[in-house]
């Protein structure tokens, strides 16, 4: 609709002529419409931003609220009475339950957060334990290496002077 129609009209075709007239009329009507809407819009914006409008709407709202208050009160009282007679929960009861539920949710949320913290702490601790574990293995390997080196040097020292004794000792160690 916003697109300009392609100019493929045959000027001798009465239908096309009608179309051309319609399109140009529509275009000028749209221009007029947009211009009037724009001025109308400006006028309305000025109006709603005026003090007179603020005062009028505030007064109207105030009178509506004042006048409708007795009726609302009447409806509230009668609804409460009917619900009480029917042994049904009233608005206040539902509100109380909702409040308690929200309080429970808050407590659950705090518990959830604490569990998250504990989980994180355990993860950190196990990671550090793992790191400690790896260090232990390395230390033990170092110890073993040192002890093996000691044994090796002892064997070497023994094997040189007494051949028989060294053989016996080696067998005993095995």
């Amino acid at each position, binding site marked *: *609709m916003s697109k300009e129609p392609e100019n493929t009209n045959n000027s001798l075709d009465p239908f096309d002529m009608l179309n051309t007239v319609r399109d140009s009329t529509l275009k000028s009507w749209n221009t007029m419409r947009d211009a009037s809407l724009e001025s109308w*819009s400006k006028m309305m914006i000025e109006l709603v931003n005026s003090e007179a409008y*603020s005062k009028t709407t505030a007064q109207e709202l105030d009178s509506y*609220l*004042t006048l409708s208050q007795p009726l609302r009160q009447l409806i509230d009282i009668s609804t409460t009475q009917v619900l009480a007679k029917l042994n049904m929960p009233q608005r206040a009861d539902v*509100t109380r339950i909702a409040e308690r539920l929200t309080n429970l949710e808050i407590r659950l949320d705090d518990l959830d*957060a604490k569990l998250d913290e504990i989980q994180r702490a355990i993860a950190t601790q196990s990671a550090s334990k793992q790191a400690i574990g790896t260090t232990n293995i390395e230390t033990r390997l170092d110890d073993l290496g040192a002890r093996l080196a000691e044994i090796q040097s002892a064997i070497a020292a023994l094997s040189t002077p007494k051949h028989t004794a060294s053989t016996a000792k080696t067998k005993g160690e095995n």
Partner: protein
Amino acid sequence: MLSSPSPMIPPALLDQLKQAEENARTLLRVTTSRANIAQTPKEVIWTLNKAKLYRYIPVVPAEKRHKIPLFLVFALMNKPSILDLRPGHSFIEYMVKQGYDVYLMDWGAPGPEDKDLNFDDYVLDYLPRAIRKVKAVSGSDEFSMLGWCIGAILTTIYAALRPDSGLKNLILLTAPLDFTDKTAGGFVRWVSDQTFDPAKIVAAFGNVPGEMIDYGAKALKPVENYIGSYLTLWDNLDNPRIVESWHAMNTWVTDIIPIAGATYLQLTKELYKENRLIEGKMVIRGERVDLSHIRASLLNVIALTDHISPPCQSESIMQKVSSTDQFLFKVKGGHIGIMAGSGAQKFTWPHIDSWLAERSQ
């Protein structure tokens, strides 16, 4: 039906009738159905009362993602789906694709039992818990927070009351914070009138009906909202791009929710009428809200033709905060248009992304 061509009807007329029929169908469809909005994949990771916290499923590998998660807080009236309007035109989808770990707070619709909920509850019960969850899920102790409209009021108060909570970056969009000028914008004028008594409205309705808030917002620009919008649709019925965009926006606009009575009372009385926040007189559960406590990097996005939160309501926060890293970004457009309009994707979103990206490492 015009499916079988008649030899009596000229082909050109037949084409036009077909087009008219198609337009009528389109008009009926978009004015009577709901568009599929808020389609970006997400999961609920936390709930409290009616509030839900969503985490959007990341599409960027973890190693390429920004380290600091982004937490979005929308207004209390209207649904946050405006941030995820439709595929291909969604701020959330865009930010997820840019590598952010995105979280969104959906406040939900308050029921009659929630009429006493106020800013104190939202700021000190809901936000800290949701943020705790964001931190736990993201594994980051720091976070960025974006607040829009009343969401910006909530995030500002939170940032002032809990400056050491890990808030690294604060983004405010069209934030109504300073009501010194009682002639700037219709809302301030209306509620500043001596006869206007918000307590009476709350006493009558409990929660303020969504229809009433919707009327208030639309009445600020009555011709555009009640007539202009439908004329735009009528003029573009043969343009699928505009029609689908209109359908999605109309779905969001008509999805109205009430605002909790106590919150409305606080908003109109303490903020709009008494201007307590910017004057440093607002007290939330016994704690004074001191805006100078805000130290997070601040990006303040202002819509130059905003008729709901005029620029003068959002600018002065820059002088009140202690943030050394702050930037005021003025965008041509209206309250909603700067984030959901056709130019948002080319201008506002990339700007927010580029500002945030270098502060999310």
